[in-house]
């Protein structure tokens, strides 16, 4: 089975697997807020403890759970340098033209990189314990309240559903086109960043053309099955949340509150 690029789903029966996807997404938002709100060492200690506990409760192997850390070190290095060299601050350690390396900048760089990593691990835990189909359904349900501020939630829900449904097909198609290009002498493995980026142009164009063609065919298939607009349709019945879902939400909300009220500014 082809899965979403981030965090392959690993089947299981752990507490995290059993939670409703809506709960998991809401908890993820609360925990992201907890990460972003962390300033002191104590507050980071709380976040790390929560993540360790979640990995333990999910009964997932540690290595794939923290896998995002390995894949994006170049991106993290750039993020670190951008923060370290442009943040400014009073204690300047060195300066080269517009670049200024300061103690605060280094601290900010570490903080931003740390936050990105922790959020990625949390997101990874969601996708590793939740089927893509469950994530889609949950997202559709969670965006419903946006209807009151004029967002066409029914249309957005259909768009999300179709977009996620098409990811494996497009990934497969990209691989096929890539192989066809390699068979005709294309090279994608250059170590130079610019060369590598340029080599992907012949891949991107046919993938886009194919995606538009597929979108056309899908629109026709939807019309043939009576789709007019998202409003005049039978609404699906949503399952109510279970007591353990409410417990999980309460615990995450409590962690978030502790972070912002107690630990955030604790030195």
């Amino acid at each position: 089975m082809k899965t979403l690029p981030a965090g392959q789903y690993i089947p299981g029966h752990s507490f995290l697997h059993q939670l409703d996807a809506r709960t998991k997404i809401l908890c993820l938002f609360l925990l992201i807020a907890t990460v972003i709100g962390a300033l002191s060492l104590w507050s980071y200690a709380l976040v790390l403890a929560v993540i360790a506990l979640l990995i333990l409760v999910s009964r997932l192997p540690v290595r794939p759970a923290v896998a995002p850390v390995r894949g994006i070190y170049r991106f993290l290095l750039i993020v670190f340098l951008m923060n370290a060299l442009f943040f400014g601050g009073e204690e300047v350690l060195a300066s080269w033209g517009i670049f200024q390396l300061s103690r605060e900048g280094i601290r900010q760089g570490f903080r931003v990189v740390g936050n990105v990593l922790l959020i990625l691990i949390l997101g990874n835990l969601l996708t590793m314990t939740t089927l893509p189909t469950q994530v889609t359904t949950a997202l559709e349900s969670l965006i419903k309240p946006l209807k009151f501020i004029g967002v066409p939630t029914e249309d957005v829900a259909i768009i999300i559903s179709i977009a996620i449904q098409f990811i494996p097909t497009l990934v497969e198609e990209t691989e096929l086109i890539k192989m066809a290009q390699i068979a005709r002498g294309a090279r994608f493995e250059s170590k130079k960043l610019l060369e590598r980026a340029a080599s992907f142009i012949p891949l991107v164009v046919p993938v886009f053309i194919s995606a538009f063609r597929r979108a056309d065919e899908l629109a026709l298939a939807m019309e043939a099955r009576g789709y007019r607009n998202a409003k005049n349709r039978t609404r699906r019945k949503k399952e109510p949340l279970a007591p353990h879902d409410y417990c999980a939400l309460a615990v995450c909300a409590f962690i978030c509150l502790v972070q912002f009220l107690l630990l955030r500014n604790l030195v």
Partner: protein
Amino acid sequence: MLVEGKNISFSYDGFSLALRDVAIKIEKGEFLVILGANGAGKSTLVKHFNALLPLEQGELRVAQIDLRDEKDIWLLRRLCGMVFQNPDNQFVSSTVEEDIAFGLENYEAPRDEIPERVRAALALVEMGGYEKRAPDTLSGGQKQRVALAGVLALEPEIIIFDEATAMLDPSGRQEVLAIMDKLHKAGKTIIAITHYVEEAVAADKVILMQKGRILACGSPEAILTDLDLMKAAELLPPLPVRLYHDLRQAGVHLKNCPLTNEELVKEIWQLKSKT
């Protein structure tokens, strides 16, 4: 007549005609196969039946609905279901049951009825038990059967298969053809578009198209055994027909022109028993 049309012409670009003065009649319960090479106008013609293409010129009535009037298009699309060529480009939901429910939800079917109708449609295509599966985990034949279930859930009178077997492997093709046959026997009107001539053998009627025109219309025996007609349509006759003519040229005369391998074996056996 379930489908009746005359003088139908259509152009995609306003210059070249994709359909030229087509007249067609299809009876209720008929199994019609439309044969033709690429660009013959087969898909263009059937896309008029459920108003996926507008009727620019001519007259067309499908299930008593006049296609010149656009107000009943929505009802027409429920009565005239369509299965497309590429199964991957027909799914809108992440699970089989949600995808089949898509059409029912569009027609505002009562919420309590939907699960039962989804189950019934899946049973018709022998895919019971696959409700929770993601469409991309299924084989080509299974995907096409699920797409068909999505159409069947709406209980259409006419089912159009627009080259629905073209992208499938031989076993997937057989799966879809078997379901097609089953639906025809159950009284549904089947319109199948294909360039696999072998698929036309089981039809009640065959229409041969070429460059937007109907070249011939008749029984499979009359159409598929006529070498000149098949050549004009840029198609190869079925293998048994070709063998029949090759044997004739070599001086071996079979009594009847066979359409299937079984008929060919029977003819050869009869010839052998005589000699």
